[in-house]
């Protein structure tokens, strides 16, 4: 029961007080009598102790363990932005593999459990749920008797898409884990897309923009995909006050139109960071008289960070902190499907 207590404690520590009651009810493990005995106005610690005592009273250890694993997955679904997700692409489909069972979470779970049992200890557990059209999986790969959050790996996959998002995992389990997933999805190769962030829907949108198609061919109705953002950007107000007149209205309007042509009228996918590794000729030598140009590239790394970097790049131009036209490697992030770039000077032949 110590393991169950550890998992429950981990769940409660991640949940906000406001979300606690709704999630416990949604969980469905406690019956109505037990739910009525819980006092959610008390502290989380009190509620945790009551829930733990109910789990211990049931005296069905295996079922209790399975249920708290499900609760842990529900907490992760609720707080998906607390995890950093990395996108992987599925390539080289295996002959004879079928994907028509991916939409059924129970079948998916059985298939995944079979693969996990082949490569890992039988104590490894699997939980699967379907949320907003996506399959959410939790794999717990134990290393010791105590629960450790680092041993839990979470995975998100939209059925019929050629990519999936995965949370952080230990390097020691990577080979076996990827072999499991390769067999499960029916693809030989799992390739990193160099795309990571906290908002999984934005990551899938960027991945889809690059990959552009599913196993059924290009979808004609892109807007119906659950991860595609359909919100238009808030229009810029050039003149706010009736008594104030801007002197450069024409310039601002022109800039606004050109930015709309470059970035579109919809909100950009949310990325927290954009990283560029640059190896190019040094181009800051206009004020340096005796620059030692030995042909070696000037190596630097640039990282843009913020709550929504793609919107931020657009706003840099609208605020006048960047000049237009912006370079292609900033404008095309949406279609390139990655947030880690390498820029190199073209070699002269």
């Amino acid at each position, binding site marked *: 029961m110590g393991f169950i207590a550890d998992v429950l404690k981990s769940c409660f520590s991640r949940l906000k007080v406001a979300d606690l009651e709704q999630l416990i009810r949604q969980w469905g493990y406690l019956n109505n009598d037990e739910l009525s005995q819980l006092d959610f106005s008390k502290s989380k610690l009190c509620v945790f102790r009551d829930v733990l005592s109910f789990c211990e009273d049931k005296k069905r250890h295996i079922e209790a363990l399975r249920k708290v694993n499900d609760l842990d997955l529900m907490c992760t679904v609720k707080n998906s932005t607390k995890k950093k997700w990395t996108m992987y692409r599925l390539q080289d489909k295996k002959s004879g593999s079928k994907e028509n069972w991916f939409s059924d979470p129970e079948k998916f779970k059985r298939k995944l459990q079979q693969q996990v049992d082949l490569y890992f200890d039988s104590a490894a557990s699997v939980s699967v749920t379907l949320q907003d059209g996506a399959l959410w999986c939790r794999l717990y790969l134990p290393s010791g008797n105590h629960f450790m959050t680092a041993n839990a790996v979470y995975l998100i996959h939209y059925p019929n898409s050629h990519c999936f998002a995965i949370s952080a995992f230990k390097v020691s389990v990577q080979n076996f884990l990827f072999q499991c997933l390769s067999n499960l999805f029916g693809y030989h190769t799992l390739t990193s897309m160099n795309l990571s962030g906290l908002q999984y829907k934005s990551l899938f949108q960027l991945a889809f923009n690059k990959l552009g198609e599913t196993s059924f061919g290009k979808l004609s109705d892109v807007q119906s995909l659950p991860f595609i953002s359909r919100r238009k950007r808030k229009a810029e107000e050039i003149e706010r006050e009736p008594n104030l007149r801007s002197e450069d209205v024409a310039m601002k309007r022109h800039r606004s139109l050109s930015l709309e042509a470059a970035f579109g009228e919809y909100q950009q996918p949310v990325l927290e960071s954009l990283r*560029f590794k*640059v190896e*190019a000729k*040094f*181009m*800051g*030598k*206009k*004020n*340096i008289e*005796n*620059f*030692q140009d*030995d042909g*070696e590239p*000037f*190596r*630097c*790394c*640039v*990282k*843009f*960070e*913020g*709550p*929504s*970097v*793609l*919107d*931020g*790049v*657009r*706003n*840099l131009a609208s*605020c*006048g*902190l*960047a*000049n*237009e*036209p*912006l*370079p292609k490697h*900033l404008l095309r992030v949406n279609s390139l499907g990655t947030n880690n770039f390498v*820029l190199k000077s073209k070699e002269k032949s």
Partner: protein
Amino acid sequence: MAPGETSTSTNRCMTTPQTFKSRLSHRFTPKRFTPYGRTPQSRRISTAVPTTRGRRKNVHTRTKSRTDSSSEAEDLKGFTNVTWKVFKLSPLYKFSSAPKDLKRYGQLLSSCVEAANQKGLFVENNVSRKALFCVQEGLKKTADDPDAIQILVKGKKGLGTVDTVILTATLCGVEMEGDLLIPDVKGHFTYYPVLLVKSTVAMTDVLITWLMRHFDCKISPLVFPPVYMAWMIAMWSGALANTNRKNKPVELVYQVPSECEGIKKITYTIEAADCLRVWNSIHDSKSDMFTEEEMTTFISSLEDHFYSLFRVKLNAMQLSCVGTSLCYIGRDGILKIYSAEHVSCILRHLTELSMEHFSLV
């Protein structure tokens, strides 16, 4: 122009007729006549204007007094890989570095920390806390430097028997050029320009409050405006490039103005060797001194390169943190030193910056 001195060019242009006598002096000066004389020294208010602008900065990374030795680097190893908060101080009244006085200060600080503990200021409930004052070796470089003092507060967590260090602080002044204290008061005051503290916010506040009350001084954070950080980048960006060790890259962190929503900061990291190549193109490596113009050219050339890649104007943003192979410095007075051999060099520069705020006339 000093009073009494005249401009020869103006003397040719303007002559006072012999028949005309006025209240003005016969010698023409460009100054306008006022009925007031020079403000007496006793009534002058000291200013806190930094005087780095336009000044030539010494680019030494070694100390002037003696060469760095491995034993000295060993003494100062405790300063490395620790995040310090830097403070500047006014002179301490009646401070003594004699062993019996340091012991007394330790007892007084211990009782003050215990009183704060009774008030519930600390989150952790340590059983006992004890403060120790001792002389820090390796930081007194010249005769003008005071003995560097290390302050430790140790405590035992719960029922444990092992002491853990809760606070580490160092009072120091390294290669202090000249004496800011006038001879009349020199016997009563000891000037430590720099205080480094590593501890929790609550414990740091207790130490600073105690120092200010006990020694009648003023302690405030030593903030580093962007121009100071630009100087540090120019000084130290290539400091270790001649050794066999792989140098940490030069890092410039720019804070994006809040009106640009979506991006908070831009981190610009440059390989140390490439940075040194640019610096050597601007500054003659044989010369020990470099000017503000060279520093400005260096920073603007890095920003121009960034602009050519991204068309983003870094010069419209402010530097918030800079990192070199020697140290990492944040605008709010955060310091992390990586190289034990250059601790004295960095503290010397901090001493200089602190002393500029308290130049007494």
